Structures are given as structure tokens and as C-alpha cells.
């Protein structure tokens, strides 16, 4: 069980929210520490070295966005942001600054622990082997540029292969349109999300059992995509 020993740092200036999240995660088997602002969170992060950070975005002085960018400068640890706002620009900014996922308030603990589990699972498995990797229903051979889904080889164009390779390497993370376009097509293409939509639609036709109800490549409305290979 991943949950047995994993350490989670919870950051929010609302004492009741940190208490509830702490008790919920502790009951799921995680070790939890809380911090009530960005600077004490950073101190805790340096001394305790958590496996995952959950942070609110709106905090006084040193907010969640600052914290994401400061932690990202130190470590690749998964960061999950909590946001009371539904506005996409804030979420996109957090993701661009290094957050891996977000959960909108109010949330149930079942949803939060599922996201925590997914992020920890992803960080626990090595991303790449010598020539490929096998995760969930997907097997990818990087040398031969071949992808198998549920044991069946799938023919992909070179760009589709690059795209699935990037999604697989960043599985369970929310990826913004900008991040995907920059990684697969180069930074000059980052202003063309329509371009990406066409490729994702084609990939879904090739990979999904029902492309209209995708199981692997999920849309995060107005933000981007999340790839869940299992």
C-alpha cells in the first residue's frame, strides 16, 4: 500500500480546512503535517521532505502560486492545489507554475484522496525504462515507436506518437493546452489549442473503446487534458 508511509503536507490558512483534510488523510493511512501560510509551508517542506503537497491558492502575503513555483524550484514532488475559485485563468496559472492537479472547493474527502492516490502512484513508478514503459492498458516501445493498447498494436502518426508519449510520461496530471503544445509542437504553437483538439480527437478514435465517452484522455474544460492509462 502506497498510503502506509507517504507523507503529505497540507497548506491552507483556514484552520478548519487543514484539520478536516488532515483527519481525512490520516484515516486513509497517510502521515500529514499542516502549515497555515506559504513561508511556514516552505520551511516544513525543507525539513520534512513530504511526498506530496496540497495547497490552497488564496493565502496572505506568500500565496499558493508562489509556493508552487518555489517548491518546483526545489523538487519534482507532486503538488495538488485547492481553489475556491472556479476561474480557469487561476487554475491554468497554478498548473503552469508547477502544480500537477487541482480540486475545487468544496470537495469530498473521497475525491481528494483519489487524486492524492493517483498523483502518488504516478510519482512512485519510474517514468521511463531503457526502451519503453508499460502502464495500465498501455505499452510503449520508444525505440520502435510502437504503442500497444490492451495488448493490441495501434498505428500512430509521428506527431500522435509524440503526443501519447508526452501524455504517458505525465499521466494523472492535469496538462494545460499550452504545456502540451509547447512540449509536442514547440513553443511557437502554444497559442493554437484548436490544433491540439484535432489531434486528441484522432488519438481518441484510435485508443478509446468509446471516443465519445473517453476513459483514457479526459478533457479538463477550458484548461487542457488529463491522461489516465488505467
Amino acid at each position, binding site marked *: 500500500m502506497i498510503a502506509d508511509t507517504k507523507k503529505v503536507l497540507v497548506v491552507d490558512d*483556514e*484552520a*478548519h*480546512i487543514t*484539520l*478536516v*483534510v488532515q*483527519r*481525512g488523510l490520516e*484515516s*486513509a493511512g497517510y502521515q500529514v503535517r499542516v502549515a*497555515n*501560510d506559504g513561508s*511556514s509551508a516552505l520551511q516544513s517542506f525543507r525539513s520534512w521532505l513530504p511526498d506530496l503537497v496540497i495547497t490552497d491558492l*488564496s493565502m*496572505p502575503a506568500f*500565496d499558493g502560486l508562489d509556493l508552487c513555483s518555489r517548491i518546483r524550484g526545489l523538487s519534482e514532488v507532486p503538488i495538488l492545489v*485547492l481553489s*475556491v*475559485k*472556479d476561474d480557469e485563468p487561476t487554475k491554468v496559472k497554478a498548473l503552469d507554475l508547477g502544480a500537477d492537479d487541482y480540486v475545487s*472547493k*468544496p*470537495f*469530498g*474527502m*473521497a475525491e*481528494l484522496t483519489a487524486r492524492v492516490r493517483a498523483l502518488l502512484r504516478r510519482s512512485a513508478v519510474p517514468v521511463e525504462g531503457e526502451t519503453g514503459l508499460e502502464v495500465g492498458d498501455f505499452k510503449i516501445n520508444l525505440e520502435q515507436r510502437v504503442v500497444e493498447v490492451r495488448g493490441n498494436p495501434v498505428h500512430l502518426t509521428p506527431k500522435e506518437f509524440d503526443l501519447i508519449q508526452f501524455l504517458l510520461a505525465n499521466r494523472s496530471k492535469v496538462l494545460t493546452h499550452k504545456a502540451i503544445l509547447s512540449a509536442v509542437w514547440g513553443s511557437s504553437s502554444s497559442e493554437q489549442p484548436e490544433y491540439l483538439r484535432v489531434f486528441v480527437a484522432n488519438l481518441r478514435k484510435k485508443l478509446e473503446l468509446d471516443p465519445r465517452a473517453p476513459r483514457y484522455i479526459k478533457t479538463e474544460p477550458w484548461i487542457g487534458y488529463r491522461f489516465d492509462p488505467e
Partner: protein
Amino acid sequence: MTLAAVTMILAVLPGFNQTAIALVLVLLVIVVAVTAGKGPALYVSILAGLVFNYFFIGQPNSFVINTLEDAVSFLIFIITAVVVGQLSSRLEKRSLQAEELLRSEQLKTALLDAVTHDLRTPLTSIKGAISTIRDRGISEEVRLELCEVIEQEADRLNRFIQGMMDLAKLEAGQLALESKNVSAEEIIEDALHRAEPLLARHRLQVSIEASLPGMQVDPRLISQVLYTLIENAAKYSGAGTMIGVSARRNGNSAVDFAVTDDGPGIAPELRAQVFQRFFRAGARPGFGVGLAIARGIVQAHGGVILIAEGNEGRGCCVHFQIPYGARA
């Protein structure tokens, strides 16, 4: 006078013919239209027409127009000046209306964000606590702890709604005080009991002057004022810092309540504005009506509320004074 002077100066300068001077006069009309509005623009247009006529049309230094050509020149100048002036004024008015609309839209968005924050924050604690109690094997101790969170956050939501109702009543002048004789100690005790979860990360110093006389006030509302000040102090000052709550005599007629903190303080130029509705100092989310309601309640009791420097020039100190025999 200015028009005449400008026209005469231009007339003697080389390179300025009749057309150029007419254009300069129209420009003056535009400036007046944009800065002063429609009426003054019309007035200046007619005046410019007369000046132009006096110096340049027909016989010099005379209003007499002899030929049809001069009459047409005069008419065209007047029509152009009036039309341009009125259009410029209308354009300026529309631009101001558009700015006003944008400000109103921005305010609406900010208010919506603030309401969203003030409602969703307690809902998050409640939903998280309920789902943990329901779905997971937790100890009795944790269950009780989470039940307490639910109760306190439900009270917080209720206070938010009560605050909105108080604000509406204050604005309509319909806030009815349910006055009773209470002591400053009772008021402080009630406010501190409600603020207990907010103060968990701060040090608290309470000071109440001995033998303070009782006050004839609405205890719920005065306690709400004190709670708002403590909530702000806890919100804006860092963990581990001191929050002071005090009550003492103010002369022979009033009790002075004060809440001090070691936070960033409020700049002197913002101290009056913080009591306005929807004003928020700093980047903290919130509805921005707490101090507006507090001031309304204090004034309804015949008192005053003001902001001063905190201890040794640090932080903030909010005082409010309530007369002993406040309005019933």
C-alpha cells in the same frame, strides 16, 4: 475674450490664413466639448463664429456681411463648429459611460468572487468533515472533533447571512435594537467564545478595566462588532502574534473597546475607506462588508469607531466607543 485674443494673435502670425484659423477655432470648440460638455461647447461654437465673422469675414473689425460668399462661409463655420462640438461632447460622454460600466462589471465580479469565497470556505470544511465521518473508520475522538467543525462552520454561514440581513436593515434604516443591560465583560466573553477557532494560532491578551458600569445595548450586535474586529485581526496578522482585546472607560459617558494586532496595519489614507461597503484592504478574499456593518451598528448605538496605529507603531488598533446608556 480668450477666443478673440487667440484669433488676433493667429491673424498676425505668418502662415496662418483664414482656413487655418477656422480649424484652430474648431479645435478650441472640441477641447471645450470634451472637458466641459455639450452646453459650453454650443456657447463657444457661437462665440467662435462671431469672432471669426468679426475679424475675417466681410469687412474687417465688423460684423457686417456684404456678399453671399461671406454669408455661406459664416454659416459653414457655425454649422461645423456646432456639429463637431456636439459630437465630441457625445463621444466623451459615451466613453465615460463605458468606463463606468466596466467599473461596475469589475465590482460585480469582485463581489461574486468574495461571496463565493465566504460561502464555499465553510462549505468545504462541512463537506470534508461529513464525508470523512461517513466513509472512513475514525475514532470517536476524531468524530467529535469533526462534528464540532461542522457546527462552528454552520454558525459561520449563519453569521454571514445575518450580516447580510443586518447590512440591508442598516441601509434601509430599519435596524431595531434589542437593548438589554449588559457588562463589557459579557460582550467580550461572547465574542471570544465565537472567535475561539480563529484564535488557535495567536496569543491573546484580554484587559478589562475594573468596575465598568453596565451598558444599555443590543448584546448580539455589539458582540458581532467585536467578533468582526477579532476576525480581521486574526486574518491579517501572522501565526504566533499577539491579539489584544480591551475595554476601559472613556470619560464618564462611554466604554472604549479596542482590538489590537501585530499585522501589517492600515495606511492612514485608507483608514476612512475601510468602513465603506465592499472595500477590502490587501489581497485577502472576503466580501468587504464586515467593517461597514460594524460602523452601522456602532453608530446605531450612538457611538463612534476609528482606526489607530497599533502598539509601538506596529500593526493596527481599532477602537469603538459605546455610551453607557446607548439608544434603546
